[in-house]
């Protein structure tokens, strides 16, 4: 090509074309390749009441279709977490001071308030990738990897699965496995389970051991019942082993009769707790089984989606979950989807609201509210619509509330009527936008 800069070639060509065709007005070219990438994006706000945890997150899932139903899905999500979360200590009628997990500095909870640990602020980035392709006519295999990073926690996982269709694709059997390793790296090291919370600067009770391995297996059957009804049944088994504690959770040491948190003597001229708290201790293994059933039923335009899950584990936690969604077409290309979810769980056998002073230490103890006995309900409404260009938008608003109770026989002395399960009310708002390029 002439050494002229290539850019001018198309300009000269355009002028020459005009001369040739005599300037017949034709619209500038609009040629777009059939979109290959589908982008699912979501902006989520999760906020608990009375300044507990707030989470704002942006998530993107990009799915690329290749020939003959091979596809690649790449996921990225970024969460920013603020607010505070119950540390596990009981409230008391005097102010309470706690050493920060890093061992540098302390924070104080006012009298009567539920102790909340606010060293919780964090940003979490998580990535996922999954490849799926057919294997022969009736099988579909997939393999994937997940990873996430917070300032004090790292997750790395791989997963894979296979699904096989039978009798004209009315029945499909699937099996999947996921293996992951998660590692805490708390500033200064994770505290020794059941060790006493020490003064600021004293890292005597710190250990380095802080990672866990999780293996998940899911076996499923999907069965088409009729033209409008499809069902799915899954059994899943999950085994976690290693460091299963939450390094920031503590349990108050309480007096056998009064139930009040037992005082402690601080070192001279040093900041630190004036009462005794011990870091929680959980077993280093947990086996979970769960059964899940889902049915989707089409009633000329409207779709009912109902599912039930039962879970039990060797920490004596049993849970039941019911999830109902009813999708209603609204107008030409919109829909409304009310959502109701009910969850209930029994408490872990080592869940306690106090380690009794003077008695031999239990092997395991945790006051983490997530291991308690509570019910949770979610009520939500989602409105979605499809734009002229074929993109899907939706907004959903949901209220999630947990309320638990501590059986009175577990309360002692002044705790009765004073120490309660930390109920929770949270607002969930999510905007979703799905488009293809």
């Amino acid at each position, binding site marked *: 090509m002439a050494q002229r800069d290539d850019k001018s070639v198309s300009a000269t060509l355009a002028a020459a074309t005009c001369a040739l065709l005599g300037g017949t007005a034709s619209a500038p070219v609009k040629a777009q390749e059939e979109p290959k990438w589908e982008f*699912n994006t*979501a902006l*989520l706000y999760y906020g608990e009441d009375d300044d507990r945890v707030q989470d704002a*997150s942006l*998530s993107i*899932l990009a799915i690329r279709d290749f020939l003959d139903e091979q596809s690649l899905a790449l*996921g990225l999500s970024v969460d920013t*977490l603020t607010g505070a*979360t119950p540390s596990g200590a009981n409230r008391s009628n005097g102010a309470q001071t706690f050493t920060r997990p890093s061992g540098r500095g302390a924070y104080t909870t006012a009298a009567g308030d539920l102790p909340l640990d606010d060293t*919780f602020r964090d940003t*979490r980035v*998580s990535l996922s990738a999954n490849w799926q392709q057919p294997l022969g006519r009736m099988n579909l295999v997939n393999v994937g990897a997940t990873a996430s990073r*917070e300032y*004090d*926690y790292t*997750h790395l*996982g791989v997963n894979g699965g296979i699904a096989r269709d039978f*009798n*004209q694709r*009315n029945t499909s059997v699937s099996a*999947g496995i996921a293996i*992951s390793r*998660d590692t805490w790296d708390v500033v200064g090291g994770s505290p020794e389970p059941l060790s006493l919370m020490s003064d600021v600067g004293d890292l005597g009770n710190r250990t380095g051991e802080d990672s866990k391995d*999780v293996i*998940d297996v*899911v076996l499923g059957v999907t069965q088409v*019942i*009729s*033209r409008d009804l*499809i069902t799915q049944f*899954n059994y*899943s088994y*999950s085994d976690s082993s290693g460091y299963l504690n*939450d390094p*920031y959770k503590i349990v108050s040491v309480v007096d056998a009769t009064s139930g009040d948190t037992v005082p402690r003597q601080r070192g001279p001229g040093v900041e630190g707790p004036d009462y005794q708290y011990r870091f929680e201790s959980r077993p280093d293994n947990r086996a*979970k089984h*769960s059964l*899940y059933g*889902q049915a*989707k039923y089409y009633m000329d335009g409207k779709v009912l989606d109902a*599912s039930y899950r039962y*879970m039990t*584990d060797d920490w004596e*936690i049993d*849970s039941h*979950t019911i999830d109902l969604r009813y*999708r209603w077409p609204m107008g030409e290309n919109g*829909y409304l989807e009310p959502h109701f979810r009910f*969850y209930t*769980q029994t408490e*872990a056998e080592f869940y306690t609201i106090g380690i009794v002073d003077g008695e031999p230490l239990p092997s395991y103890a945790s006051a*983490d509210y*997530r*291991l308690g006995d509570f019910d949770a309900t979610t009520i939500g409404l989602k409105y979605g619509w499809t734009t002229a260009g074929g993109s899907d938008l*939706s907004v959903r608003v949901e209220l999630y509330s*947990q309320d638990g109770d501590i059986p009175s026989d577990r309360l002692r002395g002044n705790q009765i009527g004073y120490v309660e399960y930390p109920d929770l009310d*949270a607002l*969930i708002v999510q905007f*979703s936008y*799905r488009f293809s390029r």
Partner: protein
Amino acid sequence: MAGCSNMGVESWDRDVLAKDEMQLIVDPLEAATDDHIYFSKEASSGGRSFGGGGCGCN
């Protein structure tokens, strides 16, 4: 599962089942977000697919 063989539809009658809103997981991103919220607030997880997790959320 013998009873299963006559359940189901002919291959050409899958138009309803092919609709987006009839997929078992309609919005994979929302499903993942929900799984994650509930994983970090409750003691159970997953069921639909692998348990959530991978976070030190508390």
